[in-house]
């Protein structure tokens, strides 16, 4: 018989084969997809995030857990309309113009999706105006900007300016991250938040959307 604790355990141990199997079992037993997401998958990712914050888990454990959630969610996706999917909030994310590094951005995307955020990943080397257009189109709660290079981090400032020009700045929280980015830099360019790593990004986004 399906139990949430077993599904949570599958997520926490990063076992994607088991998470898919358990989700299928739950569906057969008539458990609602929404409950599977919120009481199973998202609950598991919350534990993973806490373990990361406590120093018990590392990025690879988060990565495996996020994969377990992603694969299980793929099973549920056809059964849930976009409005039925329990979500903590909507995030648009991308690596800024001139920068093609994607590892950090991909990790944050996976972690946020695993934690229950709806994430639109714009990719890498994104011009400032494209970020502004995406904010207009997707109406996200949060815009996440990534840069790995000291040569490109100043493009984050350009994105904030583009949002101001498009009169969108007040509609979205802007968070920044990447190797050379610091809290001081985030404040300096007028961002709303800074995440040192993927684990912190979840906490930061939760705080920004008040969940």
């Amino acid at each position: 018989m399906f139990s949430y604790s077993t599904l949570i355990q599958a997520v926490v141990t990063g076992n994607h084969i088991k998470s898919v199997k358990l989700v299928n079992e739950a569906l057969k037993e008539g458990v609602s997809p929404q409950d599977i997401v919120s009481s199973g998958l998202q609950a598991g990712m919350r534990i993973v995030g806490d373990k990361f914050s406590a120093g018990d888990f590392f990025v690879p454990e988060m990565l495996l857990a996020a994969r377990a959630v992603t694969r299980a969610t793929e099973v549920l996706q056809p059964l849930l309309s976009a409005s039925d999917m329990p979500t903590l909030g909507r995030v648009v994310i991308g690596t800024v113009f001139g920068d093609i590094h994607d590892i950090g951005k991909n990790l944050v995307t996976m972690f946020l999706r695993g934690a229950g955020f709806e994430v639109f990943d714009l990719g890498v080397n994104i011009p400032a105006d494209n970020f502004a257009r995406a904010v207009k189109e997707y109406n996200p709660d949060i815009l996440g900007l990534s840069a790995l290079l000291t040569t490109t981090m100043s493009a984050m400032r350009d994105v904030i300016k583009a949002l101001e020009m498009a009169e969108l700045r007040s509609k979205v929280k802007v968070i920044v991250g990447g190797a050379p980015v610091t809290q001081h830099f985030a404040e300096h360019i007028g961002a709303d938040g800074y995440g040192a790593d993927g684990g912190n990004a979840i906490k930061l986004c939760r705080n920004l959307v008040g969940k």
Partner: protein
Amino acid sequence: MAITQKQKILAAARKQAVDKLPFGARIDVWYNYHSGHDTLPEKYRGWNIPDILRDQGVGIELRHGYLWKVEYRDTEVVVREDPPFTTTEYRTPKGTVSMKTMFTPQEGPWVPYELELPFKSADDYPAIEHLLKNTVLVPYLDDYLKKVEMVGEDGMVICSAPEYSPMQEIMRKIMGYEMFFYELNDHPSKVEHLYELMKGVVWQKLKILAESPVEMPMVCGNWSDDIHTPVFRKYFVPWFQEVGEFLHSKGKLTLAHIDGEMKRLIPMFLETGIDVAEAWSPAPMTSVTTAELRKAWGDRVTVWGGVPAILFEPQYSDEEFDAYVKHLLQEIAPGYNFIVGMGDNLAFDGKIERVGRIAELIDKYGRLPIEV
């Protein structure tokens, strides 16, 4: 005769006393960017990196890549150039794998960025295994020796070789970070097998290094906490112990390029026996301060770095910059086994004058032993 910049850096690396803090500065990101955009300061147009650093009155840290050329037996290598992209296809009897890189030195980087790595799925194991078994490295030192001549006694040419430990080589150059951890979880014995084969390739590099004039090879780089601590303990620590023993027996020092978040790896670094931790990037770029690092390592590792790249940028005032450097000198007092340097480069919008300013502050406050 006065001790040279190179002698000072090497003395600190060997944990020998020097009279004043050595400083080896690295500015290639700044230089490449401004050369590429024709925006070098008027005075420095047409100059090379060593001459600019000499003019700033500081020691030189110049980078060099490899000491070999790579050949593959029983493999057809097809290279397609479409600047800035290069696609390389390796056609082996066990299958074909390919990789794609992008190289835009005018934007700062000194090495190509890997857009696509050879390993795409578990189907690629046979071809990758074939490649590793048939990799032959042929010594080639000419370019390195030219740089050594250019720098002379005014600093060091740091050779990024062998660059990565065998497991990190698989992580970074074969699979990519995410895929590596999925594969290590899903197919551990296959990854272990690649690891054994990769060791053979890296040993070829080490043997070339051992016979070269390189004093302090970089045995590993681009570390951060993202290298899973249990993976580091199992695959990295024993490897560095073995490599250290070999290179020390050849009269070499070992150096690691530690330019990332190191909080969780700091305690384990001591177990590696690596002599020098270069590109140390403290808070605010990472979460650890230099004082915390020195407390954890004591005198057992020579640290090279301490001034994070971000401090050179205009968002920090000249007063804040001076205060940071002065504080750094206090943190490392009495100052032995320390080489001042950047963590890890001068950013494109960094102020070049601040490099020279560090030398002035060292002249004023960096006589050893530093008294707090």
